[in-house]
């Protein structure tokens, strides 16, 4: 790829915990990626619109309120509806192990739980990026 990887870091739902999202955003930027952060309280529709408009390669969502089973798949489906199938969709936050298989089946490519080093996220993106 001849341009830096572009990442949308997004906070879906009403959750206000943005420490993780901001730390990840900065770590990705320090790793040479271009990062757009949505700010809080984004609907799935808003996230998808931003992803399309900003032409991002990755959508990384962070959620700690427990609404992930509802909101993450919705973003995946809306992206598909827009005909976008080469964007890597990631999720992170307080997400119980039991919910992870469902989220992966729904089309989220990876779930990162508390304690994950930012390096793991960077490596995952670099390895799995779909647009090459």
């Amino acid at each position, binding site marked *: 790829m001849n341009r830096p990887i572009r990442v949308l870091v997004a906070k879906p*739902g*009403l*959750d*206000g*915990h*943005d*420490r993780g999202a*901001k*730390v990840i*955003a*900065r*770590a990705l*930027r320090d790793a040479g990626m271009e*990062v757009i*952060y*949505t*700010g*809080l*309280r984004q*609907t799935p529709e808003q996230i998808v619109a931003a992803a399309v408009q900003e032409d991002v390669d990755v959508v990384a969502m962070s959620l700690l*309120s*427990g*609404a992930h*089973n*509802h*909101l993450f798949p919705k973003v995946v489906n809306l992206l598909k509806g827009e005909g976008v199938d080469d964007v890597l969709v990631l999720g992170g936050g*307080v997400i*119980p*192990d*039991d919910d992870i298989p469902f989220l992966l089946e729904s089309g989220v490519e990876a779930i990162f*739980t*508390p*304690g994950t*080093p*930012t*390096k793991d996220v960077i490596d995952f993106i670099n390895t799995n990026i779909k647009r090459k």
Partner: protein
Amino acid sequence: MYDKKKLEDVKAAFKNWEENKVNKSLGKFPERKERFSTGSDTEVDRLYTPINVEDLDYERDLGYPGEYPFTRGVQQTMYRGRFWTMRQYAGFATAEESNNRYKYLLDQGQTGLSVAFDLPTQIGYDSDHALSEGEVGKVGVAIDSLKDMEVLFDGIPLDKVSTSMTINAPASVLLAMYIAVAEKQGVSSDKLRGTIQNDILKEYIARGTYIFPPEQSMRLITNIFEYCSKEVPQWNTISISGYHIREAGSTAAQEVAFTLADGIAYVEAAIKAGLDVDEFAPRLSFFFNAHNDLLEEVAKYRAARRLWAKIMKERFHAKKDKSMQLKFHTQTAGSTLTAQQPDNNIIRVTVQTLAAVLGGTQSLHTNSRDEALALPTEDSVRIALRTQQVVAYESGVTETIDPLAGSYYVESLTNSIEEEAMAYIEKIDNLGGATKAIENGYIQKEIQNSAYKYQMQVESLDSIVVGVNKFKIEETEKKELLKVDPHVEILQRKKLQKLRDDRDNDKVNETLSVLKEKAETEENLMPYILDAVKSYATLGEVCGVLREVFGEYEQTVIL
């Protein structure tokens, strides 16, 4: 405090010890690392002696418990009189389920209630609003109307318990519902004891459940101050919170600084609204975090008390002692809990409990071991409560007041945290006060820098988190976690639809239109909000009317 001559002797002996003993030993036994530091990354010396606190003046800087500057505590006898209030923050799913949890906790010896609301409630949306999808009943209980509130406190006599409600932007609405439930129980509002968080500035900074812009939010807050000073005199009208600022990644000194800066903004707003400082200041309360660095945390609470006392006396010319006393609730640090080997969190919470108690807290919530994974199970909540009880009854630290006072290290840290916090407050004053410093993103940026620095230290192993970046194991054991039934949302929507069908909608429309009219004037809105909730107007309807008049806050996004 020290004899000059003796201090000279100490200095000479200390120099001798360092140069002749320590340096020799370092050649053979080097220290574990080059730089030692607190949890907030303040450098720590090898040894603290009277030299570090040579300017300390006992009467001026420490004094006595219950006396200015309250460094040693706000009450004369502290835990010898009675223990802190053990108050577990709880609430999930429906009002019925939360009511059961409260009754369980009261049965287990808990002494105060603390209500957690779900996010739609905290942001002023009803459960059937589009933005509430997936969030109903998740992080707390869903309250749509007075009807839910009646169920929430069913069988709990409101003149006997004190209730803390973590509610900010719509605090006036939930307080009005609480007053209305009490009235139905036959309890008059002057008997009600409790706290509403009502701290909007830290929502803009760190927690995120804001609705209205700062100016209108400050009006609602001062409306509450004024109303409660007359009608609900035992109510703590605000809990000025450093907790979430620290959770967002601040240092201990930043936690004190930004919290007290917010406090200054509230006091200024109330004075500007024509209130007398000694009328409302005694009802201000604070809320701090308890992290793992035990001694730094103890110093933090002591520094916060002393600094607030000085601010109230010197800056705002408060006259009553009660106006200068920083009373605070503490919660152990959610951000220090690990998803890995979650039972280790019990030990972290124990250390944090000791910090809060040795720091003189008035009430405490201890987190449960499984909170990095989900909402806590009943078993986990019981262990968390037992942790407080063991510290209270078995550890011995409650037998005398402020037992760490006079420690060269703790006094030195207390001084340095106070100085650092004061420097921040001066900087914020120069920026035009807390509201301005939030609007231009200064405070958020400072916190983000600290959070990022800490994360990098964990990743480089400069900071060790047991079980996360050291002492790791393969975990296969299945954890029992609490799950909120997704049907809660459907159930709650049905209840809400029934309410909308059954209530007197003309009455609702009337109270809402009066509220809207008054919102456009300068009048105190509390009585009109109370009328609206009593007519069973929903939380979303009341906040909707205010949204129309006040508009909504636009977040300052800074990376």
